[in-house]
Protein backbone atom coordinates (compact mmCIF):
# COMPACT_ATOMS: atom_id res chain seq x y z
CA UNK A 1 0.00 0.00 0.00
CA UNK A 2 1.48 3.32 -0.97
CA UNK A 3 0.62 6.96 -1.24
CA UNK A 4 2.65 9.33 -3.39
CA UNK A 5 2.87 13.14 -3.25
CA UNK A 6 -0.60 13.56 -1.77
CA UNK A 7 -2.00 17.07 -1.50
CA UNK A 8 -5.35 17.74 0.12
CA UNK A 9 -7.02 21.07 0.83
CA UNK A 10 -10.33 21.82 2.50
CA UNK A 11 -12.43 24.92 2.11
CA UNK A 12 -13.38 26.23 5.54
CA UNK A 13 -15.15 29.37 6.69
CA UNK A 14 -11.72 30.82 7.41
CA UNK A 15 -10.54 30.06 3.87
CA UNK A 16 -8.45 27.39 2.22
CA UNK A 17 -6.91 24.91 4.65
CA UNK A 18 -4.10 22.63 3.48
CA UNK A 19 -4.21 19.36 5.42
CA UNK A 20 -1.84 17.15 3.47
CA UNK A 21 1.10 18.50 1.55
CA UNK A 22 3.36 16.36 -0.64
CA UNK A 23 2.78 13.37 1.61
CA UNK A 24 4.27 10.03 0.62
CA UNK A 25 3.77 6.87 2.64
CA UNK A 26 4.32 3.11 2.27
CA UNK A 27 3.06 0.32 4.52
CA UNK A 28 3.55 -3.44 4.41
CA UNK A 29 2.31 -6.41 6.49
CA UNK A 30 2.01 -5.71 10.20
CA UNK A 31 0.51 -2.77 12.03
CA UNK A 32 1.67 0.76 11.24
CA UNK A 33 0.54 3.53 13.54
CA UNK A 34 -0.01 7.09 12.43
CA UNK A 35 0.23 9.62 15.19
CA UNK A 36 0.02 13.36 15.55
CA UNK A 37 -2.09 16.08 17.14
CA UNK A 38 -5.74 16.56 16.16
CA UNK A 39 -6.33 18.23 12.80
CA UNK A 40 -3.07 17.14 11.21
CA UNK A 41 -4.75 14.97 8.57
CA UNK A 42 -4.53 11.46 10.02
CA UNK A 43 -8.15 10.60 9.28
CA UNK A 44 -7.94 12.33 5.89
CA UNK A 45 -4.97 10.15 4.92
CA UNK A 46 -6.81 7.02 6.03
CA UNK A 47 -9.90 8.04 4.03
CA UNK A 48 -7.77 8.69 0.96
CA UNK A 49 -6.11 5.27 1.33
CA UNK A 50 -9.58 3.69 1.56
CA UNK A 51 -10.77 5.57 -1.52
CA UNK A 52 -13.43 7.46 0.46
CA UNK A 53 -11.87 10.76 -0.56
CA UNK A 54 -9.86 11.83 -3.55
CA UNK A 55 -6.63 13.76 -3.07
CA UNK A 56 -6.33 17.11 -4.88
CA UNK A 57 -3.20 15.65 -6.45
CA UNK A 58 -1.01 12.61 -5.93
CA UNK A 59 -1.92 8.94 -5.89
CA UNK A 60 -2.95 6.36 -3.31
CA UNK A 61 -2.53 2.78 -4.42
CA UNK A 62 -3.77 -0.29 -2.60
CA UNK A 63 -3.09 -2.64 -5.57
CA UNK A 64 -6.79 -3.51 -5.73
CA UNK A 65 -6.54 -5.27 -2.39
CA UNK A 66 -9.62 -5.84 -0.27
CA UNK A 67 -10.01 -3.19 2.41
CA UNK A 68 -11.56 -3.41 5.86
CA UNK A 69 -12.18 -0.15 7.69
CA UNK A 70 -12.88 0.47 11.37
CA UNK A 71 -14.46 3.91 11.43
CA UNK A 72 -14.05 6.37 14.25
CA UNK A 73 -17.78 5.93 14.91
CA UNK A 74 -19.20 2.40 15.13
CA UNK A 75 -21.48 2.92 12.10
CA UNK A 76 -23.54 -0.19 12.88
CA UNK A 77 -26.93 -0.77 11.29
CA UNK A 78 -29.24 -0.17 14.25
CA UNK A 79 -32.22 -2.26 13.13
CA UNK A 80 -30.49 -5.55 12.41
CA UNK A 81 -28.58 -8.09 14.49
CA UNK A 82 -24.82 -8.29 14.88
CA UNK A 83 -24.82 -11.26 12.46
CA UNK A 84 -26.74 -9.28 9.81
CA UNK A 85 -24.36 -6.33 10.31
CA UNK A 86 -21.53 -8.63 9.29
CA UNK A 87 -23.49 -10.28 6.49
CA UNK A 88 -24.26 -6.79 5.14
CA UNK A 89 -20.69 -6.19 3.98
CA UNK A 90 -19.95 -9.65 2.61
CA UNK A 91 -19.67 -10.09 -1.15
CA UNK A 92 -21.60 -13.35 -0.88
CA UNK A 93 -23.33 -14.50 2.32
CA UNK A 94 -20.96 -16.88 4.10
CA UNK A 95 -22.26 -18.04 7.49
CA UNK A 96 -19.12 -20.05 8.17
CA UNK A 97 -16.91 -16.98 7.86
CA UNK A 98 -19.28 -14.93 10.02
CA UNK A 99 -19.17 -17.59 12.76
CA UNK A 100 -15.38 -17.66 12.50
CA UNK A 101 -15.06 -13.87 12.87
CA UNK A 102 -17.62 -13.81 15.68
CA UNK A 103 -15.49 -16.39 17.51
CA UNK A 104 -12.30 -14.46 16.74
CA UNK A 105 -13.72 -11.26 18.22
CA UNK A 106 -15.50 -12.89 21.16
CA UNK A 107 -18.97 -12.06 19.88
CA UNK A 108 -20.48 -15.53 19.40
CA UNK A 109 -22.90 -15.02 22.30
CA UNK A 110 -23.99 -11.67 20.92
CA UNK A 111 -24.64 -12.75 17.32
CA UNK A 112 -28.39 -12.21 17.54
CA UNK A 113 -28.29 -9.03 19.62
CA UNK A 114 -29.13 -5.63 18.20
CA UNK A 115 -26.34 -3.03 18.38
CA UNK A 116 -28.29 -0.97 20.92
CA UNK A 117 -28.27 -3.94 23.28
CA UNK A 118 -24.45 -3.98 23.37
CA UNK A 119 -21.97 -2.09 25.51
CA UNK A 120 -19.55 0.41 23.95
CA UNK A 121 -16.75 -2.14 23.99
CA UNK A 122 -18.89 -4.79 22.31
CA UNK A 123 -19.93 -2.32 19.61
CA UNK A 124 -16.27 -1.62 18.84
CA UNK A 125 -15.73 -5.36 18.57
CA UNK A 126 -18.60 -5.59 16.09
CA UNK A 127 -17.08 -2.73 14.08
CA UNK A 128 -13.79 -4.65 14.04
CA UNK A 129 -15.53 -7.93 13.17
CA UNK A 130 -17.29 -6.22 10.25
CA UNK A 131 -13.96 -4.92 8.97
CA UNK A 132 -12.54 -8.46 9.14
CA UNK A 133 -15.43 -10.52 7.82
CA UNK A 134 -14.58 -10.02 4.14
CA UNK A 135 -11.02 -11.28 4.71
CA UNK A 136 -9.39 -7.90 4.03
CA UNK A 137 -5.78 -7.71 2.96
CA UNK A 138 -5.65 -4.14 4.22
CA UNK A 139 -7.15 -3.07 7.53
CA UNK A 140 -7.55 0.64 8.23
CA UNK A 141 -8.53 1.67 11.75
CA UNK A 142 -9.44 5.18 12.78
CA UNK A 143 -9.24 5.73 16.54
CA UNK A 144 -10.48 2.18 17.18
CA UNK A 145 -10.38 2.50 20.96
CA UNK A 146 -12.32 5.74 21.39
CA UNK A 147 -14.60 5.61 24.41
CA UNK A 148 -13.24 2.32 25.73
CA UNK A 149 -11.86 1.81 29.21
CA UNK A 150 -8.17 0.75 29.57
CA UNK A 151 -9.03 -2.89 30.28
CA UNK A 152 -11.15 -3.26 27.17
CA UNK A 153 -8.58 -1.40 25.10
CA UNK A 154 -5.84 -3.78 26.26
CA UNK A 155 -7.99 -6.81 25.43
CA UNK A 156 -8.87 -5.47 21.99
CA UNK A 157 -5.22 -4.59 21.26
CA UNK A 158 -4.19 -8.17 22.01
CA UNK A 159 -6.97 -9.51 19.76
CA UNK A 160 -6.12 -7.19 16.86
CA UNK A 161 -2.43 -8.08 17.03
CA UNK A 162 -3.24 -11.79 16.86
CA UNK A 163 -5.75 -11.39 14.03
CA UNK A 164 -3.41 -9.21 11.94
CA UNK A 165 -0.50 -11.62 12.46
CA UNK A 166 -2.49 -14.77 11.75
CA UNK A 167 -4.06 -13.37 8.60
CA UNK A 168 -1.02 -11.56 7.16
CA UNK A 169 -2.91 -8.26 7.06
CA UNK A 170 -1.39 -4.85 6.30
CA UNK A 171 -2.91 -2.60 8.94
CA UNK A 172 -2.73 1.13 9.46
CA UNK A 173 -4.11 2.56 12.66
CA UNK A 174 -4.66 6.19 13.48
CA UNK A 175 -4.70 7.35 17.07
CA UNK A 176 -3.68 10.36 19.07
CA UNK A 177 -3.01 8.11 22.05
CA UNK A 178 0.71 7.34 21.94
CA UNK A 179 0.37 4.58 24.54
CA UNK A 180 -2.23 2.68 22.48
CA UNK A 181 -0.07 2.86 19.38
CA UNK A 182 3.03 1.66 21.22
CA UNK A 183 1.14 -1.35 22.53
CA UNK A 184 -0.40 -2.19 19.16
CA UNK A 185 1.97 -1.22 16.36
CA UNK A 186 5.18 -2.68 15.04
CA UNK A 187 6.12 0.84 13.84
CA UNK A 188 4.82 4.30 14.54
CA UNK A 189 4.98 7.17 12.07
CA UNK A 190 4.45 10.73 13.29
CA UNK A 191 2.39 12.38 10.55
CA UNK A 192 4.47 15.54 10.86
CA UNK A 193 7.45 13.54 9.53
CA UNK A 194 5.74 12.58 6.28
CA UNK A 195 3.52 15.59 5.80
CA UNK A 196 5.28 18.48 4.12
CA UNK A 197 8.54 17.30 2.65
CA UNK A 198 9.12 14.09 4.58
CA UNK A 199 8.54 10.55 3.38
CA UNK A 200 8.09 7.27 5.23
CA UNK A 201 8.90 3.93 3.71
CA UNK A 202 8.28 0.54 5.28
Amino acid at each position, binding site marked *: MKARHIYKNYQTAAGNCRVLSDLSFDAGPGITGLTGPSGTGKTTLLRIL*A*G*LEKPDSGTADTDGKK*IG*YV*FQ*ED*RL*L*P*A*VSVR*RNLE*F*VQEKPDRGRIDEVLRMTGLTEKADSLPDELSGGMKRRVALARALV*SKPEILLMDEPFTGLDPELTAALIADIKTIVKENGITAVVVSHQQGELEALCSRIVPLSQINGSGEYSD
Partner: protein
Amino acid sequence: MKKAHGRAAVVISAALFWLILWECVSLSVGSELIFPGPVRTLAALIGLLGTSEFYTSVGWTMLRVFGGVFLSVGLGIVFGILSGFYEPVRTILAPAVSTVRSLPVVSVIILLNLWLKSGVVPLAVTFFVCFPITWTNVTEGILSTDPLLVEMADLYRVPAGRRLRDLYFPALRPYLNASLMNAVGMGWKSTVTAEVLAAARPSAGMNLYYAKLYLNTPELFAWTVALILCSMIVEKILRLIIGKERPAI
Protein backbone atom coordinates in the same frame (compact mmCIF):
# COMPACT_ATOMS: atom_id res chain seq x y z
CA MET B 1 -55.47 -3.66 36.20
CA LYS B 2 -56.91 -0.86 38.31
CA LYS B 3 -55.40 1.66 35.90
CA ALA B 4 -57.02 -0.10 32.92
CA HIS B 5 -60.42 -0.03 34.64
CA GLY B 6 -59.95 3.66 35.40
CA ARG B 7 -59.08 4.39 31.78
CA ALA B 8 -62.14 2.45 30.54
CA ALA B 9 -64.34 4.41 32.93
CA VAL B 10 -62.96 7.69 31.57
CA VAL B 11 -63.55 6.61 27.95
CA ILE B 12 -67.13 5.44 28.68
CA SER B 13 -67.84 8.66 30.60
CA ALA B 14 -66.55 10.77 27.71
CA ALA B 15 -68.66 8.81 25.20
CA LEU B 16 -71.74 9.17 27.41
CA PHE B 17 -71.11 12.90 27.76
CA TRP B 18 -71.09 13.41 23.98
CA LEU B 19 -74.13 11.13 23.45
CA ILE B 20 -76.12 13.04 26.09
CA LEU B 21 -75.03 16.36 24.55
CA TRP B 22 -76.09 15.06 21.10
CA GLU B 23 -79.52 14.03 22.53
CA CYS B 24 -79.92 17.41 24.26
CA VAL B 25 -79.17 19.32 21.04
CA SER B 26 -81.57 17.08 19.14
CA LEU B 27 -84.32 17.65 21.73
CA SER B 28 -83.76 21.39 21.70
CA VAL B 29 -83.94 21.46 17.88
CA GLY B 30 -87.10 19.40 18.15
CA SER B 31 -87.12 17.97 14.63
CA GLU B 32 -85.79 14.62 13.47
CA LEU B 33 -85.68 16.01 9.97
CA ILE B 34 -83.07 18.58 10.93
CA PHE B 35 -81.16 16.97 13.79
CA PRO B 36 -82.03 13.39 14.81
CA GLY B 37 -80.81 12.16 18.18
CA PRO B 38 -78.56 9.14 18.87
CA VAL B 39 -81.47 6.74 19.52
CA ARG B 40 -83.16 7.54 16.20
CA THR B 41 -79.78 7.36 14.41
CA LEU B 42 -79.05 3.97 15.98
CA ALA B 43 -82.47 2.72 14.88
CA ALA B 44 -81.74 3.91 11.33
CA LEU B 45 -78.32 2.25 11.45
CA ILE B 46 -79.81 -1.06 12.58
CA GLY B 47 -82.30 -0.74 9.72
CA LEU B 48 -79.41 -0.21 7.28
CA LEU B 49 -77.50 -3.19 8.64
CA GLY B 50 -80.45 -5.39 7.70
CA THR B 51 -80.21 -4.51 4.00
CA SER B 52 -77.89 -6.11 1.47
CA GLU B 53 -77.42 -2.72 -0.21
CA PHE B 54 -75.56 -1.49 2.86
CA TYR B 55 -72.91 -4.20 2.57
CA THR B 56 -72.61 -3.83 -1.22
CA SER B 57 -72.18 -0.07 -0.92
CA VAL B 58 -69.70 -0.21 1.97
CA GLY B 59 -67.84 -3.02 0.18
CA TRP B 60 -67.42 -0.97 -2.99
CA THR B 61 -66.40 2.12 -1.03
CA MET B 62 -63.80 0.09 0.87
CA LEU B 63 -62.54 -1.37 -2.39
CA ARG B 64 -62.06 2.13 -3.78
CA VAL B 65 -60.38 3.36 -0.58
CA PHE B 66 -57.97 0.44 -0.46
CA GLY B 67 -57.43 0.39 -4.21
CA GLY B 68 -56.50 4.07 -4.16
CA VAL B 69 -54.45 3.81 -0.99
CA PHE B 70 -52.44 0.76 -2.06
CA LEU B 71 -51.88 2.15 -5.55
CA SER B 72 -50.68 5.45 -4.11
CA VAL B 73 -48.59 3.84 -1.37
CA GLY B 74 -47.08 1.31 -3.80
CA LEU B 75 -46.19 3.86 -6.46
CA GLY B 76 -45.27 6.40 -3.77
CA ILE B 77 -42.70 3.95 -2.39
CA VAL B 78 -41.25 3.16 -5.84
CA PHE B 79 -41.03 6.77 -7.00
CA GLY B 80 -40.06 7.97 -3.52
CA ILE B 81 -37.10 5.58 -3.50
CA LEU B 82 -36.08 6.61 -7.02
CA SER B 83 -36.41 10.29 -6.07
CA GLY B 84 -34.41 9.77 -2.90
CA PHE B 85 -31.54 8.17 -4.82
CA TYR B 86 -31.60 10.14 -8.07
CA GLU B 87 -31.78 13.92 -7.98
CA PRO B 88 -33.00 14.25 -11.61
CA VAL B 89 -36.06 12.07 -10.81
CA ARG B 90 -36.70 14.20 -7.74
CA THR B 91 -36.33 17.42 -9.74
CA ILE B 92 -38.80 16.18 -12.37
CA LEU B 93 -41.41 14.86 -9.90
CA ALA B 94 -41.25 17.57 -7.22
CA PRO B 95 -43.21 20.30 -9.09
CA ALA B 96 -45.84 17.80 -10.27
CA VAL B 97 -46.33 16.40 -6.76
CA SER B 98 -46.40 19.89 -5.31
CA THR B 99 -49.07 20.95 -7.83
CA VAL B 100 -51.22 17.87 -7.16
CA ARG B 101 -50.89 18.46 -3.42
CA SER B 102 -52.06 22.08 -3.72
CA LEU B 103 -55.01 21.27 -5.98
CA PRO B 104 -58.37 21.40 -4.19
CA VAL B 105 -59.83 17.88 -4.00
CA VAL B 106 -62.99 19.11 -5.70
CA SER B 107 -60.98 20.30 -8.73
CA VAL B 108 -59.32 16.89 -8.98
CA ILE B 109 -62.69 15.15 -8.76
CA ILE B 110 -64.34 17.34 -11.42
CA LEU B 111 -61.36 17.08 -13.77
CA LEU B 112 -61.09 13.30 -13.40
CA ASN B 113 -64.84 13.00 -13.88
CA LEU B 114 -64.33 14.45 -17.35
CA TRP B 115 -61.92 11.72 -18.35
CA LEU B 116 -62.78 8.63 -16.29
CA LYS B 117 -65.83 6.43 -15.60
CA SER B 118 -67.68 7.56 -12.49
CA GLY B 119 -66.95 4.31 -10.62
CA VAL B 120 -63.20 4.75 -11.09
CA VAL B 121 -63.08 8.46 -10.19
CA PRO B 122 -63.04 7.96 -6.37
CA LEU B 123 -60.17 5.49 -6.65
CA ALA B 124 -58.20 7.85 -8.91
CA VAL B 125 -58.94 10.80 -6.60
CA THR B 126 -57.72 8.83 -3.58
CA PHE B 127 -54.57 8.04 -5.52
CA PHE B 128 -53.96 11.72 -6.32
CA VAL B 129 -54.64 12.75 -2.72
CA CYS B 130 -52.49 10.04 -1.13
CA PHE B 131 -49.59 9.71 -3.59
CA PRO B 132 -47.96 13.04 -2.58
CA ILE B 133 -48.07 12.01 1.10
CA THR B 134 -46.24 8.73 0.47
CA TRP B 135 -43.86 10.15 -2.11
CA THR B 136 -42.82 12.99 0.20
CA ASN B 137 -42.39 10.73 3.23
CA VAL B 138 -40.37 8.10 1.37
CA THR B 139 -38.17 10.66 -0.40
CA GLU B 140 -37.47 12.42 2.90
CA GLY B 141 -36.81 9.08 4.55
CA ILE B 142 -34.20 8.14 1.95
CA LEU B 143 -32.59 11.57 2.07
CA SER B 144 -32.40 11.55 5.85
CA THR B 145 -30.75 8.12 6.08
CA ASP B 146 -27.55 8.42 8.10
CA PRO B 147 -24.85 9.46 5.58
CA LEU B 148 -22.19 7.73 7.68
CA LEU B 149 -23.96 4.40 7.20
CA VAL B 150 -24.34 5.12 3.48
CA GLU B 151 -20.59 5.82 3.25
CA MET B 152 -19.88 2.55 5.07
CA ALA B 153 -22.07 0.71 2.54
CA ASP B 154 -20.27 2.49 -0.32
CA LEU B 155 -16.88 1.43 1.04
CA TYR B 156 -17.91 -2.23 1.08
CA ARG B 157 -19.71 -1.94 -2.27
CA VAL B 158 -22.91 -3.35 -0.75
CA PRO B 159 -25.40 -4.30 -3.48
CA ALA B 160 -28.60 -2.25 -3.86
CA GLY B 161 -31.03 -4.96 -2.69
CA ARG B 162 -29.18 -5.52 0.56
CA ARG B 163 -28.89 -1.77 1.15
CA LEU B 164 -32.65 -1.39 0.75
CA ARG B 165 -33.36 -4.30 3.08
CA ASP B 166 -30.97 -3.55 5.93
CA LEU B 167 -30.15 0.14 5.65
CA TYR B 168 -32.97 2.07 3.97
CA PHE B 169 -36.14 0.14 4.86
CA PRO B 170 -35.48 0.18 8.62
CA ALA B 171 -34.79 3.93 8.34
CA LEU B 172 -37.91 4.36 6.18
CA ARG B 173 -40.22 2.35 8.42
CA PRO B 174 -41.50 5.23 10.58
CA TYR B 175 -42.00 7.33 7.43
CA LEU B 176 -43.88 4.50 5.71
CA ASN B 177 -46.07 3.90 8.76
CA ALA B 178 -46.89 7.60 8.93
CA SER B 179 -47.73 7.79 5.24
CA LEU B 180 -49.88 4.65 5.33
CA MET B 181 -51.91 5.90 8.29
CA ASN B 182 -52.31 9.35 6.73
CA ALA B 183 -53.17 7.87 3.34
CA VAL B 184 -55.91 5.68 4.82
CA GLY B 185 -57.34 8.63 6.80
CA MET B 186 -57.30 10.90 3.75
CA GLY B 187 -58.44 8.03 1.52
CA TRP B 188 -61.78 7.65 3.30
CA LYS B 189 -62.59 11.34 3.11
CA SER B 190 -61.58 11.80 -0.51
CA THR B 191 -63.25 8.56 -1.69
CA VAL B 192 -66.64 9.36 -0.16
CA THR B 193 -66.47 12.97 -1.43
CA ALA B 194 -65.58 11.74 -4.91
CA GLU B 195 -68.34 9.12 -4.83
CA VAL B 196 -70.90 11.88 -4.25
CA LEU B 197 -69.53 14.32 -6.82
CA ALA B 198 -68.91 11.66 -9.47
CA ALA B 199 -72.19 9.85 -8.75
CA ALA B 200 -70.35 6.55 -8.37
CA ARG B 201 -72.64 3.55 -7.86
CA PRO B 202 -72.88 1.47 -5.80
CA SER B 203 -71.28 3.50 -3.03
CA ALA B 204 -71.68 4.68 0.54
CA GLY B 205 -71.21 8.25 -0.72
CA MET B 206 -74.23 8.07 -3.03
CA ASN B 207 -76.38 6.55 -0.28
CA LEU B 208 -75.37 9.47 1.89
CA TYR B 209 -76.38 11.83 -0.90
CA TYR B 210 -79.74 10.09 -1.52
CA ALA B 211 -80.54 10.20 2.19
CA LYS B 212 -80.00 13.96 2.08
CA LEU B 213 -81.95 14.29 -1.17
CA TYR B 214 -84.98 12.44 0.24
CA LEU B 215 -84.72 14.35 3.53
CA ASN B 216 -84.10 11.10 5.40
CA THR B 217 -81.81 12.76 7.94
CA PRO B 218 -81.69 9.84 10.41
CA GLU B 219 -80.39 7.64 7.57
CA LEU B 220 -77.92 10.38 6.61
CA PHE B 221 -76.65 10.35 10.20
CA ALA B 222 -76.63 6.53 10.21
CA TRP B 223 -74.49 6.39 7.04
CA THR B 224 -72.14 8.95 8.54
CA VAL B 225 -71.82 6.91 11.74
CA ALA B 226 -71.27 3.72 9.70
CA LEU B 227 -68.48 5.38 7.70
CA ILE B 228 -66.82 6.71 10.85
CA LEU B 229 -66.98 3.23 12.42
CA CYS B 230 -65.55 1.60 9.26
CA SER B 231 -62.70 4.14 9.19
CA MET B 232 -61.95 3.56 12.88
CA ILE B 233 -61.98 -0.23 12.49
CA VAL B 234 -59.67 -0.07 9.47
CA GLU B 235 -57.31 2.29 11.29
CA LYS B 236 -57.26 0.01 14.33
CA ILE B 237 -56.49 -3.06 12.19
CA LEU B 238 -53.75 -1.14 10.39
CA ARG B 239 -52.20 -0.07 13.68
CA LEU B 240 -52.21 -3.67 14.85
CA ILE B 241 -50.45 -4.70 11.63
CA ILE B 242 -47.95 -1.87 11.76
CA GLY B 243 -47.51 -2.31 15.50
CA LYS B 244 -46.81 1.37 16.03
CA GLU B 245 -48.67 4.38 17.27
CA ARG B 246 -49.47 6.98 14.65
CA PRO B 247 -46.37 9.20 14.39
CA ALA B 248 -46.67 12.96 14.16
CA ILE B 249 -47.24 14.26 10.64
